């Protein structure tokens, strides 16, 4: 019996850098998978409290305002403003490491008008400026979710004027970020 396949599968499991295909982080908590499911049919769904109306993010078991057990997923407007933004030149995850090798990965912190702070992949191509450092704090943005190639819903922030009403428009922006395809290393396992 050859030991090669065993060694190969071991390396594939334990050494992400040797894999042919690298994808964004797959892991979520059970609430995170609820977020994924709730976001399939709409541009952005967040937990709302049926009792006090407050909006929650990141996903919670109970309402952060009233501690009530009456959270429901509702379609939510994605309008907001930039709190801060960075360009990642280094990552702990193989998928991003490969993307970073081409150009830095921009991430934004956004305050949505509904009152929550979200981290989002920043679609720089929708803004006039090139580098995140030149985007002023409080710049108006729009946030929506799209399913990435790890089958998780992820937040994407675009310039406020960007048309995102249709699924195909949102799909094109997510594709432009490279989120819909794994990062490929042709000689990998």
């Amino acid at each position, binding site marked *: 019996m050859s030991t090669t396949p065993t060694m190969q599968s071991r390396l594939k499991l334990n050494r992400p850098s040797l894999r042919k295909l690298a994808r964004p982080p797959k*892991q979520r908590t059970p609430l995170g998978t609820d977020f994924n499911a709730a976001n399939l049919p709409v541009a952005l769904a967040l937990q709302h409290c049926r009792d006090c109306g407050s909006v929650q993010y990141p*996903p919670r078991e109970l309402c952060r305002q009233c501690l009530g057990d009456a959270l429901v997923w509702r379609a939510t407007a994605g309008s907001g403003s930039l709190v801060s933004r960075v360009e990642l030149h*280094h990552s702990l995850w193989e998928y991003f490491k490969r993307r970073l090798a081409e150009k830095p990965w921009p991430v934004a912190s956004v305050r949505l008008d509904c009152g929550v702070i979200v981290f989002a992949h920043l679609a720089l191509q929708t803004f006039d400026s090139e580098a995140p450092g030149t985007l002023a704090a409080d710049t108006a943005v729009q946030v929506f979710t799209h399913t990435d190639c790890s089958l998780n819903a992820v937040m994407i922030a675009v310039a406020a004027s960007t048309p995102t009403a249709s699924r195909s428009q949102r799909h094109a922006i997510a594709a432009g970020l490279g989120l819909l395809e794994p990062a490929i290393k042709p000689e990998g396992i």
Partner: protein
Amino acid sequence: MKDYAGVALTTPVSFGYARQSPHGAAWFIGSVLRQLLAASGLGPDDIDGLAVSSFSLGADSAITLTQHFQLSPRWIEQMPYGGASGILALRRAARAIQAGDAEIIACIGGDGAAHRSFEGTAANFSNFTIDASFPYGAGGPNAAFAMITQRYMDEFGARREDFGAISVAQRYNANHYPAALLGHKTLTLEQYLAARPIASPVHLLDCVMPCAGGEGFLVMSEERARSLGLEWCKILAADELHNAHRDDDIQLRGGWTEYVDRLWNRAGFGPDEVDMLQTYDDYPVISMLQMEDLGFCAKGEAPGWVRDTDLRFDGSGPQARKLPHNTSGGQLSVGQAGAAAGYLGVVESMRQLTGSAGANQVAQARHAMVSGFGMINYDRGLCSAAAILARSER
């Protein structure tokens, strides 16, 4: 709040700093304990209290460690509070000593650094991290702190040179502290500015280096410390507040603002009479928040304040105002040994105040302010803690 009269902090120990290590957390924690016993002349059965902080215990905990080390404590704490661990440990332990719940408490922070272990810790740090921050670039703490750094620069006009002043002065201190992992290298502002970007605006020399190591000290009554012939220091004031300013969009201040006046009141003096400041320096911007919130300068003025202040331990810099800051080099130059990093400033202050610091000794050190900050759950650090320590007058 009751004062901390009669409580002695003794026997500062720093142990085993290494960039990577085949040893687990129990090896570092146990080794610190061994050194605490050797330095104090106590035996294992004299230790009746144990406080432990670690990120890398895996399936173990403070209680399972008692069997590893054959201890029988009647007081035990496990404190997963990251960069606030040391100050929280000394507060809890001091109260236990005052209440008579324990007589000699070993407070220890220690972590291993196995290959790729930092990646695992960052990816699984908390539920909010898993769902809402790690998937966005997997930058780990660098990303959250870069957000804060960028906004701080936007709001207050801070420049990279200002952050660099902190890193460069700390490296000078580390050059005089043999255990610092980066202490063998000098650092100039030009080298600092030329470092590669990590999560811009954060560059390589703004980031702490994860490593293995352990830190610890003993807490007991002053009578006990005197009878054992140990040097000690005392707690003039200490406080903590967690998840403060929770409605701020981004963290440009910490919980310190809410209790800083009480701290100085209890100590009976102000920032001018502090001989050293040990901030939690996982990134220079966080040290700036502490300098501001602890009353050394006003909000937003830390960039100018660090330009005009000599932060070296020996006051050899050109600036007229002197305040030794992170006198062993801080985490930026010593390394961030997981939860032990939350002990670094406490243990270093204890060495300084008991006159046992060695080549980086601050002359005539009487008072030290130590500050802790910890646990980036999502977009901000949740823990804040600070203590004012003083040399004992025997």
